[in-house]
């Protein structure tokens, strides 16, 4: 869809960075910032003269932008449902390149002694989780249902980062986030949740129909699923698809 108009905006955006080289514009969920920096750099090394432009934001922000004609070549979503929202703009099939599972996050030393869902749901413990509207919140709700507990959080946050922030700042005694999120945060530690792998979050990547250079875009998606990228992803705590 809309392949004809793509050259204009692309050219403008890229022109502003000024280089005669080829560029590939990747829109990626903000939680992938660290890994993508590494992967993109490696990809550039493999493709001399190629410059990978990265734009990070919340998955749904990016999806909205793509639907509005943003000059993106590749989209890396943090969940399946967001990828579905731009189905019309995707070239071919999205590829799942990583997975993630939930974990408790607690301040260093776990002062509230969180061990399982039951202790997490105990009255008197200040907990924060993602709101059910966002992917991690939906997953949390599923997990709670599986565990048969009713959560009464102090706050239902709009993103994982907000949950992490509340716990890291000591406002909350515990939260539920993805494994990879704990890995990149400081001052907090993870407490595994039993049966967490029953609820797996998948990260799909897709080349976009509007891509100026469809081959390179697809190459990047393939590269994500490849071994080199896998190593980086695993290092950051992501699971394999």
């Amino acid at each position, binding site marked *: 869809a809309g392949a004809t108009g793509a050259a204009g905006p692309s050219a403008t955006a890229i022109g502003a960075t000024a280089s005669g080289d080829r560029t590939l514009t990747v829109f990626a969920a903000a939680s992938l910032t660290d890994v993508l920096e590494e992967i993109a750099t490696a990809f550039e090394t493999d493709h001399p003269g190629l410059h990978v432009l990265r734009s990070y934001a919340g998955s*749904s922000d990016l999806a*909205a932008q793509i639907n509005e004609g943003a000059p993106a070549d590749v989209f890396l979503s943090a969940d399946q449902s967001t990828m579905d929202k731009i189905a019309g703009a995707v070239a071919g099939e999205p590829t799942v390149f990583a997975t993630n599972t939930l974990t408790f996050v607690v301040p260093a030393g776990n002062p509230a002694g969180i061990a399982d869902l039951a202790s997490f749901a105990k009255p008197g413990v*200040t907990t*924060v989780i993602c*709101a059910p*509207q*966002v992917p991690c919140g939906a997953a949390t709700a599923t997990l709670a249902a599986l565990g048969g507990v009713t959560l009464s*959080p*102090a*706050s*239902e*946050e*709009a993103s994982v980062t*907000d949950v992490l*922030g*509340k716990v890291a*700042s*000591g*406002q*909350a005694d515990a939260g539920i986030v993805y494994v990879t999120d704990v890995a990149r945060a400081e001052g907090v530690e993870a407490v595994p949740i039993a049966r967490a792998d029953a609820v797996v979050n998948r990260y799909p990547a897709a080349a976009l129909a509007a891509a100026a250079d469809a081959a390179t875009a697809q190459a990047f998606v393939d590269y994500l699923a490849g071994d080199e990228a896998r190593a980086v992803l695993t290092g950051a705590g992501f699971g394999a698809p």
Partner: protein
Amino acid sequence: MTGPRWLAPLAALGGLLVLLPLAGLVSRVEWSEFWSLVTAPDSLTALQLSIRTATAATVLTLLLGVPLGFALHGMRRGPLAPARAAVRAVVLAPLVLPPVVGGLALLSAFGRRGLLGEVLGGSLAFTTLAVIIAQAFVAMPFMVVSVESALVARSGRREAIAATLGASRTRTFVRVTLPGIVPALATGAVLAFARALGEFGATLTFAGSLAGVTRTAPLDIYLLRETDPEAAAALSLVLVAVAIGVVALAYRPVTTRTPR
């Protein structure tokens, strides 16, 4: 006071810059579902909370911001004069802080591990009061700047004359100065209210997001967006309508022109 004719096209352009996006928003709303979306219990709860907290925050900025504006103006003479520009700039800081950072800053001051953590014992977190504080924090600059610039435009002559007539400082302040800066107070209050109503980042980070307690309309809209962008646009429009209504009703620039 009719400006030159060439102002008109510029004004129209300025108007379009504001109006077109709003029109765009309206064009995106599915009107068939509008009413049910907007009257959903969650939306109403969030809207009510927003109006209550924004009103409280506006009162707070009036209560604290007006004195602060005065103090700032008072610094123009005396030993503190050199620090005035710096203090003014610091007061403007909440305007510059990106939304999330404002919340972080509030956390590091009033959070459980913040500067006042011992004193407050984290009792503020996740409460409606925290929302009000976050909103007042971001809205404060408007009040202070409005008040100060209104004071700068005054010569202080009427205040001096009031003093010769035996008026106490309080009397002079209440009867002479305040009536003289009513337009500035109105402007400050409207800007503060609107800013508080739209507050998002600092609230999210500092107060959290729990329906009925801390989830104001902007937070609700942000979440709705994840699942239902149309609903988010609709609720945004309602928020804008509320603001427009309050502003149109409350803010008629009062003509307390200084007598010639």
